[in-house]
C-alpha cells in the first residue's frame, strides 16, 4: 500500500466546514428578511429604494451579507476544484483567478456600500 499523504493542518477542514455553515445561515436569514421586508412595503421610486438600502443597520447587514457571500463562494468553489481539477497547476491557476475575482467583487460591493448616501 502507498503511504498516506499528509493531510495538512488538522483543523483546516473543520474551519471550512464551519465557515460554510455560518455564512449560509446568515445569508438565508438575510435573504428571507429582504424578501419579506420588500413584499410587505414595496419601494417604488429611487429615494425609497436608497433609503431602504442604506437605512441604519441595513448597510451593515448588507456588508455582512457580502462578506458571507465571498467566504461561502470561496469555500464552495475550492471544494469543487479539489474534486474535479486534478492537475496541480490547473487547480492552482483557477484558485488564484477565483481568489482575485472574489476579492475584486468584494471591494466593488464595499465601494457601493460606502458611496450610497445615508
Amino acid at each position, binding site marked *: 500500500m502507498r503511504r498516506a499523504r499528509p493531510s495538512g493542518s488538522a483543523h483546516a477542514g473543520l474551519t471550512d466546514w464551519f465557515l460554510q455553515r455560518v455564512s449560509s445561515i446568515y445569508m438565508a436569514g438575510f435573504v428571507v428578511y429582504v424578501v419579506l421586508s420588500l413584499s410587505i412595503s414595496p419601494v417604488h421610486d*429611487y429615494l425609497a429604494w436608497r433609503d431602504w438600502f442604506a437605512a441604519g443597520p441595513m448597510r451593515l447587514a448588507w456588508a455582512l451579507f457580502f462578506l458571507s457571500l465571498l467566504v461561502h463562494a470561496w469555500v464552495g468553489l475550492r471544494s469543487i476544484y479539489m474534486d474535479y481539477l486534478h492537475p496541480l497547476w490547473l487547480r492552482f491557476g483557477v484558485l488564484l483567478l477565483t481568489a482575485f475575482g472574489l476579492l475584486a467583487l468584494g471591494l466593488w460591493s464595499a465601494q457601493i456600500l460606502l458611496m450610497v448616501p445615508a
Partner: protein
Amino acid sequence: MGMEKNKKRPVYLNLFKIRLPVGGVVSILHRVTGVLLVLALPLSIYMLQRSLQDPAAFRDILARLGTPFGRFAILIVIWIFAQHFFSGIRHLLLDIDVGIDKSAARRNAWLTFAASLSVVLLTGICL
C-alpha cells in the same frame, strides 16, 4: 496481487456513467447552482450599483427587468437561487441528523424541487 487484478478500476467518478439517486442529483445541483450563482454575481452587483446611482439609472434598471427577457431572466435566477437555498437547508438539516434515514432523505430531496418550483411559480404570478 490484488492490486494487479484491479488495474482497470475507475480512478475518478464519471458523472455521466453513474445513475444517481435523487439525493445525488440534488447534491450535484447544489454545486451547479452554486457555480451559476457566483457567475451571476458581477452582473447582479453591477445592477445593484446602477439602481443606487441616480433616479434615471434606477428607472433604467427597472425598465430592463420589466421586459419579457428581463422577467424570464429573473425567473431563471430565482429558480437557481431557490434550488440552492432549499438544497442548502436540506444539507444543514442533514448535519444535525434531521431527515438522515434513507426514505426521509429521499423525500426531502424531492421536496427541494417542489419548494424551488413553488417559489418560481409564486414569483411568476407576482411579476
